[in-house]
């Protein structure tokens, strides 16, 4: 290993250590979703035509809009950290609020999407869905589970960012100590990356 052995300096914070811990947690999240991606690949391999058909029922425009929303929220998130590094606290808070707003916008869209599907009788165990081909049942099953788990992560992310906003306002997160914000940013970008893969695999396979 190339780093010199770390001194245990008393009372000093270890920003690198905190970041390392967050990255390791992110690895576990990647494998959490990874398990679902394994299931997706397996069932798509077995039911290529059914997946193709089912995908046509998803709203590409809404999906693309959500992709752009999340990508933009990643921009505002990264910029928020850049701002506090430069001691621009107000700008940092504004950018953070923008990130949260975009996150909520994403969730609202998802809510509409799900709502529309459910109205058409496309939801797990619905009679309409069960009457369809097996591959389509699986497609929508995976659709709800994966976008659902992802949405849950977005919601948690928004809550975490809210806490960060409060800490920023109180000066507990500042230019000399912004590790919590940085780590929250890592989590947020992860959520963005997961969607980067969900989008083409569910919306663009027709």
């Amino acid at each position, binding site marked *: 290993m190339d780093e010199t052995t770390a001194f245990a300096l008393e009372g000093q914070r270890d920003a690198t250590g905190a970041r390392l811990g967050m990255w390791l947690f992110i690895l576990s999240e990647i494998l959490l979703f990874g398990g679902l991606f394994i299931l997706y690949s397996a069932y798509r391999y077995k039911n290529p035509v059914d997946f193709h058909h089912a995908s046509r029922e998803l709203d590409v425009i809404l999906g693309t809009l959500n992709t*752009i929303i999340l990508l933009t929220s990643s921009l505002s998130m990264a910029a928020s950290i850049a701002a506090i590094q430069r001691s621009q606290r107000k700008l940092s808070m504004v950018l953070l609020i923008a990130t949260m707003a975009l996150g909520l916008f994403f969730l609202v869209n998802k809510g509409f999407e799900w709502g529309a599907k459910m109205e058409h009788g496309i939801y797990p165990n619905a009679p309409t869905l069960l009457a369809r081909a097996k591959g389509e049942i699986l497609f929508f099953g995976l659709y709800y589970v994966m976008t659902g788990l992802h949405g849950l992560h977005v919601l948690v992310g928004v809550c975490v960012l809210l806490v960060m906003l409060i800490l920023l306002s109180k000066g507990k997160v500042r230019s000399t100590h912004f590790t919590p914000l940085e780590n929250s940013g890592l989590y947020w970008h992860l959520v963005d990356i997961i969607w980067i893969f969900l989008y083409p695999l569910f919306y663009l*396979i027709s």
Partner: protein
Amino acid sequence: MKPEEEVRKTRYQTYALVWVTLIILTGITLSAAGRELGGWTVLIALVIAGTKSGLVLNYFMHLRSERLTVFKVIIPLVLAVFLVFILLTFSDLAFRGGVK
């Protein structure tokens, strides 16, 4: 442990450029989806998604500016682990009817 170290400051410009690239790549993957590409569809979609993720990891998540070995290793590691899981699972799924 050193006190809060100098994490290299990225310029706002860089972030904006990365964002533009991400949007462009999104457009590309969208248009590629509309075409008949047969078996290549998945591969192209994954390559583009991988590229977008790489940009987010390196620039938004600052992976590029991390110096310690452990940071450079973790993403390749998790990809390798995932790859192994999926390949070995497919060694079952793809050959259920016997090796042709």
